[in-house]
């Protein structure tokens, strides 16, 4: 059988900004047969997307395809002119980008956007297009009424499936998927992965799947190609790469997914007065404006009671929209609370950060999710790290410089980085700078708001290790916010599971990981990608009733999605946070025995 795509000896050159060209892709060969799914994996900068885009004859601005042969169905793509490329793209080969939100036009109804490639390529008329859209929507498990809606009315997972529908509209022979689930949280990722797999199999189209997550790729790909520094490191059938990797770099990638020492066994010292105590904290995005109606009205946080001990790591885990970031913002004084009390070392904190004394501000620091956005692009690294020293300790310039060097060294960066701008650093290095800035204040508590989720697996593992090391060296406490239970298990002393602003489970890490779990915790555990084949199907089954993702207004907020909900009780009454062993509590009407029974069913929930 002739391959759909044949790339041989591909070389891509990029303008390095200094007037000379450097090779970003060096002599890459790649073949994709009809109906085959090939995964390109590697860390950022490996050249995965560049190779994938080259399949469409596309080179990003500032780069050029200089050498090599790209044959699509025997046709030389590099020899095509603009018209030929337009006929190829979207019809014979199509592309799904990472950010669905950026890929969709906010002003055009969803149905019209899916129809666009069909009409542009003259493949279908209006009525035929409608039929085609209806079948795609069914295939991808989207609600029928979605065609008349606009992109902002669809959820993140739906948006990604809509982009997929656009890409599939012309039944292309090759689908290029560029990190399609990276921006989604774990439970949404399952839905989209399942849709992608169904779609590819149903259509019989070949696909190139670009990802940095080996576990995700293991569920979808027939063959895996590992890339690093613009060259292929290793390639082979999925099972072989996952089970018998030959190259050390592949082993590194697998280890990043399958951490060896998972848990801290150390028990946190728990003094009589906790460092941070939240009592009955409520918050919402409702705003009392002078003009126009108040926005929102739903509470984002409901009666939160949590404590963080001195030197303790409390992880707050939940999907996007669970209120976990709002929790960090409320503690930081960036978002007002409706009611409740927050105390730092026994002293009540003012609502807004500007009303707190300098000393209190110094003691709580925050690190944000995306280091690309959280560092001032116009300031040098030295100024960024030096500012807290100046602000909190009123430190003179010379002392500050000495401290900056020490802090840079602490986070593993050379002193020369002091003179650089954030744009001159890689993503991982930028996050290190953000960490150094937080530590510059010598805080008692650092709020870590999803600090790993914008980084690829290998870099994220390094940053996590850094956070653990810094923790060992000082008595700082972390409030560690994440959507990923497995990551959290490697650093947290205790875990709080948050859903729709309500704490559903709270306990020591080892206790949370031992059944019985709250049904939602069990769902989150199953949603963490595993290398095991068949994980996707198990996770999809365990996911519970679909569609209804909105929290219930009364009763248990998780009840609409709960596989164990008791009709007549759960939708009426919010269960109490029931303490089962010391320090471990579950908010559920079901008894421990019932939960344990449901969770020791054949579906494995442990990540390894």
């Amino acid at each position, binding site marked *: 059988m002739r391959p759909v795509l044949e790339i041989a000896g591909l070389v891509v050159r*990029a303008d390095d900004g200094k007037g000379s060209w450097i090779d970003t892709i060096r002599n890459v060969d790649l073949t994709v047969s009809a109906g085959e799914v090939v995964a390109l994996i590697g860390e950022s900068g490996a050249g995965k997307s560049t190779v994938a885009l080259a399949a469409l004859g596309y080179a990003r601005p500032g780069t050029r395809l200089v050498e090599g042969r790209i044959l699509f169905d025997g046709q030389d793509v590099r020899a095509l002119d603009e018209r030929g490329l337009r006929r190829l793209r979207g019809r014979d080969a199509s592309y799904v980008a990472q950010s669905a939100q950026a890929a969709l036009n906010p002003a055009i109804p969803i149905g019209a956007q899916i129809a666009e490639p069909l009409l542009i390529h003259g493949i279908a008329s209006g009525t035929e297009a409608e039929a085609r859209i209806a079948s795609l929507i069914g295939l991808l498990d989207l609600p029928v009424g979605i065609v008349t809606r606009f992109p902002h009315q669809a959820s993140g997972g739906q948006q990604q499936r809509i982009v997929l529908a656009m890409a599939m509209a012309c039944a292309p022979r090759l689908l290029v998927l560029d990190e399609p689930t990276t921006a989604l949280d774990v439970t949404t990722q399952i839905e989209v992965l399942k849709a992608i797999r169904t779609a590819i199999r149903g259509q019989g189209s070949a696909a190139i799947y670009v990802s940095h997550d080996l576990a995700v790729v293991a569920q979808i790909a027939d063959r895996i190609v590992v890339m690093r520094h613009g060259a292929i490191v290793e390639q082979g059938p999925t099972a072989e790469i996952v089970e018998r990797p030959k190259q050390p770099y592949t082993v590194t990638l697998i280890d990043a997914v399958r951490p060896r020492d998972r848990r801290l066994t150390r028990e946190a010292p728990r003094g009589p007065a906790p460092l941070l105590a939240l009592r009955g904290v409520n918050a919402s995005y409702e705003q009392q404006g002078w003009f126009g109606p108040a926005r929102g009205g739903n509470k984002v946080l409901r009666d939160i009671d949590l404590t963080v001990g001195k030197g303790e790591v409390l992880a707050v885990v939940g999907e996007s929209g669970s209120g976990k970031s709002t929790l960090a913002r409320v503690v930081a004084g960036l978002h007002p609370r409706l009611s409740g009390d927050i105390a730092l070392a026994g002293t009540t904190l003012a609502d807004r950060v500007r009303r707190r004394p300098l000393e209190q501000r110094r003691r709580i620091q925050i690190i*944000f999710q995306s280091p690309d956005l959280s560092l001032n692009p*116009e300031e040098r690294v030295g100024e960024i790290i030096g500012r807290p020293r100046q602000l909190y300790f009123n430190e003179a310039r010379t002392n500050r410089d000495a401290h900056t060097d020490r802090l840079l060294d602490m986070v593993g960066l050379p002193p020369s980085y002091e003179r650089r701008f954030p744009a001159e650093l890689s993503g991982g290095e930028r996050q290190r700078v953000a960490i150094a800035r937080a530590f510059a204040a010598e805080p008692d508590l650092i709020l870590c708001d999803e600090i790993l989720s914008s980084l690829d697996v290998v870099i994220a593992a390094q940053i996590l290790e850094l956070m653990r090391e810094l923790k060992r060296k000082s008595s700082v406490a972390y409030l560690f916010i994440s959507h990923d239970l497995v990551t959290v298990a490697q650093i947290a002393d205790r875990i709080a599971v948050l859903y729709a602003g309500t704490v559903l489970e709270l306990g020591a890490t080892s206790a949370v990981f031992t059944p019985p779990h709250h049904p939602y915790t069990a769902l989150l555990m199953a949603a963490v990608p595993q290398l095991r084949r068949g994980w996707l199907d198990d996770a999809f089954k365990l996911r519970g009733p679909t569609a209804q993702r909105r929290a219930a207004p009364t009763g248990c907020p998780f009840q609409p999605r709960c596989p164990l909900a008791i009709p007549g009780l759960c939708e009426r009454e919010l269960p109490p946070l029931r303490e089962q062993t010391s320090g471990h509590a579950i908010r559920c009407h079901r008894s421990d025995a019932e939960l344990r029974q449901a969770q020791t069913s054949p579906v494995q929930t442990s990540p390894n």
Partner: protein
Amino acid sequence: MSAGEATAQAIPRPRRLPPPLACIGLAIVAIGLIMALLGPFLARHGAGELISERPFPAASWALPFGGDHLGRDVLSRLLHAAPVTIGLALGATTVGFVIGLTVGFFTAEVRGNTDTMITWILDILVSFPPKLIALIAIAGLGSSLPILIATLGFVHAPRVARVARAVAMNISAMDFVEAARARGESVLAVMVREIWPSARRPMAVEFGLRVTFSILVLSSLSFLGLGVQPPMTDWGSMVRENMSGIFLGTPAALIPALAIGILTVGINLVIDWIGGSSGRRLTEELSR
């Protein structure tokens, strides 16, 4: 995203010459500034010095641009008027800019009801036609340099404030500004240290546009006889004085008009360059 990471390491950007149109613009602006600073010293004759007995003497080596309606040297008067025209425009724009920028950044940073109220007042101020405000102010207070600067500054301030607010709104929603707030930086520190550096380029464009606008409004006021009063002169009043010469075919009115036009175009060329390159840099930085 993946290929960008490898190339992002390239350290400082090489300094490249601005594109040709921007070079022309920069040259015009430079000449304008030199005229504004040194004009009176370069002039061969005094501003009021009568060179010829007749009105509108023809151009010659002694009078490169000819003479005006009283027989004065047009080139010398052009040089004497340059500091007035350009200085007034820069002064008025700076006054409006400092006020507008402060109000705009402040209201974007504090948000809430204060923002709603200030924006409301700004909208009301913007709804008055600028020339009308200027005419009323001059009619009531008389025409003097401080009054002209204050009036034009007052016209500029709410317009600049609205642009500054819009620019600052986008920046203040970014995480690095949030990080500064979480540190407990004061409103002023957030405005100066966090928002201003990223707002510099778009605001520079706005400054250039406002200077152009000032030159045109001042010139038209002078043309109406409401602006700069004799014996002081600016380019706008030179056009008015020498209008009758147009029918005699002398360039005395056209030269100052041309000077206004060229300077305006020059400033705009520079603005286009700053605006264009800032747009590219900003998206480049955001997409990384």
